[in-house]
């Protein structure tokens, strides 16, 4: 994240300087958001680092951990589900979930897991790609369910 002011119009540099100040000064929300956050945290697990040392392993390990968690979740949901892998070598959660009657709930769970993994490793493109695929499949599944409802 770098700026290159030397290549910009002087008027743009003034604007850029003022804009850069906005990032740090920020904007105060109109109400205190902490009570809502605190309530949401009550329903969450403890931070992932609780009782452990910091996770400093390579991002590949974190992807594998997320993928393994998703695969286990799928296996627990429907025993004997066939294994499909994506180009990235990760289980095709979306594809499998879409074939199940309880697919939507599993997709939502998978999205939660993936979002956490992504927050942990924001630059990970494989995870971003997987989140995108799962979101897309969720939309397809919703559309299919709606069509079935209309048809019946």
């Amino acid at each position, binding site marked *: 994240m770098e700026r290159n002011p030397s290549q910009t119009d002087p*008027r743009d540099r003034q604007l850029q300087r003022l804009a850069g100040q*906005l990032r740090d000064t*920020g904007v105060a929300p109109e109400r205190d958001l902490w009570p809502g956050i605190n309530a949401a945290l009550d329903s969450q697990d403890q*931070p992932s680092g609780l009782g452990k040392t910091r996770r400093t392993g390579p991002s590949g390990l974190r992807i594998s951990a997320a993928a393994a968690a998703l695969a286990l979740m799928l296996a627990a949901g429907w025993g004997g589900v066939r294994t499909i892998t994506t180009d990235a070598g990760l289980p095709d959660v979306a594809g499998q979930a879409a074939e199940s009657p309880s697919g939507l709930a599993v997709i939502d769970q998978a999205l939660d897991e993936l*979002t956490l993994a992504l927050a942990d490793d924001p630059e990970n493109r494989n995870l971003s790609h997987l989140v995108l695929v799962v979101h897309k499949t969720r939309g397809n599944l919703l559309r299919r369910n709606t069509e079935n409802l209309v048809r019946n």
Partner: protein
Amino acid sequence: MTGVAINKDERNGPVVINRKSKSSPAAGPGEILAIDCGLADRAAEGDRAAFEEIYRRYVNRVYGLCLRLTNDVTEAEILTQDTFVKAWMAIAGYAGHGNLGGWLGRVAVNLWRDQYRATARRGRLAAEMTAYRFSNDEAEATAGMAGGAGSSRDGVIDLLTGLDLERCIARLPEGGRLVFVFHDVEGYTHREIAELLDLATGTVKAQLHRARRLLRNMLAEDREAAHGA
């Protein structure tokens, strides 16, 4: 967040710029980093009070970013809350590299991006930007760059405040707003923005140029209106 109507008028309401933000205390960068690391360590051990302190220090920075990205107070509040909930779960991943505000900002941008990509907004934005690139606005933009349109208003930016700029950013078209916020406010490169928004780098540059020109004109007009009133 989907299904929440975007009401741009909400942005014209009482936007409060916190000039003494808790995220920018008087302490030096090294001291801030040390405090942040200490708070993050305690939060990673489950200390909710330490995490609340992190929230208090950085909520204005995160909320400001969310508001500029969504242009809607309700959506910004939800995104801010989601950001801190995700941050609580992932706080052990903050290894003290860079400032905590920047790390929280990336969590917010990633959450925003996932939601943004899951909606049709991405397609509409790409169409809006492509249409702009091949319109006559290119010539207009070039004229502005050469000092033509608006050149008599050059000095006006010196007199402006962050509040003026916030209000004008909210009035930009979506494509220009996002590119301006990512580049000029958050410091992302053209390439990073292009990847984030799935656009060509040239499109990002053209949009940024257009956004700056629109902002300069808006700011000058507002200033003139204020003087005339």
